[in-house]
């Protein structure tokens, strides 16, 4: 099953069209509003603004499974992201990324090993998965890899369609 075929809603509850991301490079990130890594939103938005015109987008996916650090409602998350970090990239509904109720999108993503060859469960908030324009999960970056890390930016630039 392609990563684009897993139904998911946008943060406002309306269906989110994952298929519209075909042909783009995508960085999928499980996000949280009350995490020590939450300031990574700044770097993620910077990536969005730098590379959006070249066929790239960040896709934020809120999750409350790590320390309960994304407890808010959809409205609260949306307000936090826009008012605190000026986020312009799309954000989906809150989902599970690990466990028996893991969303299908993350079943696909977590099969990808990280740089140490370890696949499986997401470690914490702000894990990042780079998807090529043809839908292949090409890289997995653990939470402490910053959005502006050389390894991440280099991998991103290598898969940009334009």
């Amino acid at each position, binding site marked *: 099953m392609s990563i684009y075929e897993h139904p998911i809603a946008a943060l406002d509850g309306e269906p989110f069209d994952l298929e519209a991301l075909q042909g783009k490079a995508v960085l999928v990130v499980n996000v949280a509003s009350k995490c020590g890594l939450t300031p990574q939103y700044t770097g993620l938005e910077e990536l969005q603004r730098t590379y959006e015109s070249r066929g790239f987008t960040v896709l934020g996916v809120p999750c409350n*499974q790590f320390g309960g650090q994304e407890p808010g409602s959809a409205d609260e998350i949306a307000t936090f992201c826009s008012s605190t970090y000026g986020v312009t990239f799309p954000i989906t509904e809150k989902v*599970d990324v*690990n*466990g028996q109720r*893991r969303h299908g999108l993350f079943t696909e993503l977590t099969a990808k090993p990280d740089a140490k060859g370890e696949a499986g469960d997401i470690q*914490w908030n702000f894990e990042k998965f780079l998807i090529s324009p043809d839908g292949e999960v090409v890289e997995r970056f653990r939470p*402490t890899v910053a959005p502006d890390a050389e390894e991440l930016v280099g991998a991103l630039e290598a898969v940009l369609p334009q």
Partner: protein
Amino acid sequence: MADTWKTVKAEQVKAGETVRTQSGSVVIVSRIETSFMGMPNMLAFIEDTPDRWFKQPMTADADVEVRSS
């Protein structure tokens, strides 16, 4: 009969126990991850049940309560 809770260090908790953290969060500990995020003084309790998957990191020497009924 009401549950009773015993205070222990986080590093003394075993898989299968139910813990209550200082914030009041209750976790059914399915397994324990050591050196959470590469930090040797940290561990993480992982609840992995049909109802919930949840990860709660702690410093190893933090006080938590373990339920005994």
